[in-house]
């Protein structure tokens, strides 16, 4: 469920196809994101899941799986 929501946000933000987005996908290497894309993505995730992702945590995120794990651990939902 979280994965699907995250995937939808990634598809919208990065303009990639849903099939390309797997838990192992790396944002920069596989999905073609640049640093500003990542910042935007974090902002969109914060909005969607009503949470704050501190910069030091955001820096550790490199794959879609990292995001899903992070949200599972920190989301209020």
């Amino acid at each position, binding site marked *: 469920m979280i994965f699907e929501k995250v995937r939808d946000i990634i598809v919208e933000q990065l303009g990639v196809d849903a099939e390309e987005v797997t838990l192992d996908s790396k944002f920069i290497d596989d999905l073609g994101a*640049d640093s*500003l894309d990542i910042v*935007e993505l974090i*902002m969109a995730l914060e909005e969607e899941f009503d949470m704050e992702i501190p910069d030091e945590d955001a820096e550790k995120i490199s794959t879609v799986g990292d995001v899903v794990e992070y949200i599972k651990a920190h989301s209020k939902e």
Partner: protein
Amino acid sequence: MELEGRTALVTGASRGIGRAIAVYLAELGAQVAVNYSSSEQRAIEVVEAIKEKGGRAIAVKADVSNLQEVEAMFEKVLNEFGDLHILVNNAGITRDALLIRMKQEDWDAVLDTNLKGVYNCSKAAAKIMIKKRRGKIINISSVVGVAGNAGQSNYAAAKAGVIGFSKAIARELAPRNIQVNVVAPGFIETDMTAALPESIRQEMLKQIPLGRYGDPMDVAYVVGFLASDKSQYITGQVIHVDGGMIM
């Protein structure tokens, strides 16, 4: 009209150059948020002047150096207009003194309003513009930020800072189709320059090749161009509106 359907926020728009910019952007068709910090009555007059000409405007209070007030202002603008296409960072103050007599509070006040204020507002605007993949940020610097001026080390530092800041974010935001430019006015007839002693005003005049002071509209016309689609391929530039003082 060139800015039909666009929304603009002009800081420090209750008088002087900011007022001229707000009124002109409205004439070009934009809906304008007129920011002020203390001159509420004058800001309302600007809003009325815009409405008289058939435009749409609101007055929004915020001290641009205060992040909370800036965030509240952007929220109000979005609630009212639904979007933001153009930000003009114009708010500025002076606390002139020769360096050895300059108090730290004078330094801090000018840097807070004239430089941190630009950071606060640009950051809030960029968050909106990045999502929309378009936007115009126009920062008002000064000839003093380029050439310096005795008695204005704080003002010169802040205004030079605005130029460096603008070039940095012009690069950051270029991939999102957001253009960031600087307008550097020279000596424009406003309350700020009217406060100068006549002897200094005469001395200044000698440094202006065109031999006269500028009018706030001289600045507003350039801002109008930079806010429009006609300047889509211009970013990171400093446009001098100073009668030729800087060449």
